[in-house]
């Protein structure tokens, strides 16, 4: 597999003027601003192969957007190198952005006052797509995103879900090989989220589109991404398949047992599991997969306790991510 995106030892430092407090502080920072160096990205390396859907996640201020801006060429790194389709976006931004599609959930590239179709027509001319290719591309996008319903509506009158679909189509018209998505489902209802995830999957399957997704919505990540790159404090803290990250970070599972009667006289303990919570008739056991299987634990417990109901909870991506943010 050939790498579509290669990032090596990427560093980005900012100088930030520190504002003093109060009037005196404001005057002082006006006359002699105190500047501090902030390292937004501190030596990030990764490489992404064609056709991957990668979740690029991390808490607010982890350096996600800064990385994306360097990948797209609108920020210059302090040091390190970036290659997109073998080209440096800093040296040849125009060549690189022609191969990229970018969608921000919180911004739009559509023209607010005009009908959606006008924005598409403009993009056709900017990316110099010939008429036939444009028609074909738009037909496919319309089909998946159901653009026909609102292509003649002014953008300002679109619902957020429709606008987002419009923005996705706008980013895909020139058939880019890489799509950057920054919180594409933010603020959307379940239906719209579903439509957008479906579209991303379809484009990935049909066109071999490489997708880099930054999001805080872990459902997006779970449903779309096969691989996660987790960053915190400007560094990559985890990089691998989702399942492996979950397994590594959260080896625990939970067994919830509901008893038939109050348990004052019962011996609830089990040597391989710890009780983490107890509430009324319900008892939560935490156990490690490597020490005991769920089946064994259930067998042991139901042997000595009057159990009415049982359920096993797998740790999910959310637990794993919380674990990452906590420990780094």
């Amino acid at each position, binding site marked *: 597999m050939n790498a579509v995106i290669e990032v090596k030892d990427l560093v980005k430092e900012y100088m930030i003027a520190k504002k003093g407090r109060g009037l005196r502080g404001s005057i002082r920072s006006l006359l002699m601003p105190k500047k501090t160096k902030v390292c937004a990205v501190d030596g990030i390396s990764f490489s992404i192969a064609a056709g991957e859907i990668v979740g690029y996640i991390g808490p607010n201020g982890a350096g996600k957007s800064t990385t994306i*801006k360097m990948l797209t060429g609108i920020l210059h790194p302090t040091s390190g190198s970036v290659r997109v389709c073998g080209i440096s976006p800093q040296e040849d931004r125009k060549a690189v952005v022609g191969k990229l599609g970018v969608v921000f959930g919180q911004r739009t590239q559509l023209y607010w006052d*005009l009908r959606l179709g006008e924005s598409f027509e403009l993009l056709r001319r*900017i990316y110099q797509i010939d008429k036939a290719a444009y028609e074909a591309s738009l037909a496919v996008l319309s089909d998946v995103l159901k653009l026909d319903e609102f292509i003649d509506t002014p953008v300002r009158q679109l619902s957020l879900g429709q606008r987002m679909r419009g923005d996705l189509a706008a980013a895909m018209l020139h058939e880019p090989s890489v799509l950057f998505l920054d919180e594409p489902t933010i603020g959307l209802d379940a239906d719209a989220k579903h439509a957008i995830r479906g579209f991303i999957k379809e484009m990935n399957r049909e066109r071999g589109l490489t997708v880099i997704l930054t999001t805080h919505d872990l459902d997006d990540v779970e449903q779309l991404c096969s691989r996660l790159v987790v960053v915190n404090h400007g560094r990559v803290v985890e990089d691998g398949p989702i399942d492996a990250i979950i397994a590594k970070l959260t080896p625990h599972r939970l067994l919830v047992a509901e008893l038939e009667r109050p348990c004052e006289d019962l011996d609830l303990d089990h040597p391989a599991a710890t009780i983490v919570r107890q509430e009324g008739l319900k008892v939560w056991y935490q156990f490690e997969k490597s020490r005991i299987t769920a089946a064994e634990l259930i067998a042991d417990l139901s042997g000595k306790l009057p159990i009415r109901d049982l359920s096993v909870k797998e740790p999910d991506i959310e637990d794993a991510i919380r674990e990452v943010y906590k420990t780094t």
Partner: protein
Amino acid sequence: MLQAYLYIAKMKLLTNLTYRFEWLTSIFTNLILMLASVFIWQAAYRGGGGAGEALSVDDMVTYSILSSTLGALFVCNVQDTIYVKMREGQIATDLYRPLPLLGGYLADDIGGMLSSILNNAIPLFLFAALFFGFPGPADPLSLALFIPSCLLSYGILWLLSALVGMVAFWVMELGNMGMVKDVILRVLSGAFVPIWFFPGPVQTVSAFLPFQYTYQTPLGIYIGRVGTYEALGDMAVQAVWIALLALLLAAVWRRAKTKTLIQGG
């Protein structure tokens, strides 16, 4: 590429035509400004000051009307566009496109200018003709020189506006800077009071600044204040300013690109 620019201009034109109310208010304010400046000049000439020696009252009225019309026509939003887009981080979406940023903004302003011809300049000119008689050029040759001179004026104005807008790449709070430039421009361009009425030393300094070549030069040509050769000389100066400002803008833009700080996200 040219097609993209044309389409941007067309979209701006369409956008401006959708806002009918804004159009009416803008005609109204421009009309008031024009009437005010004409009345002030008429009053000044009636007072019998020394003004009459430089220009006749009719020439001055024509000058004022044309100046207001040009003011409505010369759309230079680029300064605010860059400022607002930097502030809101929206500039990123423009940078993701394989189209030169400034070229796109110029096309946008040219679209604005085209809509201004329909929306503003023609109605304003017609109103003025009704109120004060048709403000014609001194002679056909003046008109022939006036039009290219106006285009050169627009070049200077736009480049100045873009240069000030560029400051937003370094300083987020552009507010004052833009205002300072606008005030200097209003005074030193001769848009309201021609520089001919200023004291000698000010005129000398002004001749070495770009501002008077934006309004006074084409307007002086229109009313026949300057002869043909002088007019051609002034237009050459305009062209030199465009070249200088364009070089400066290119240098600033090159530095701005490595400096880009995008807010938010």
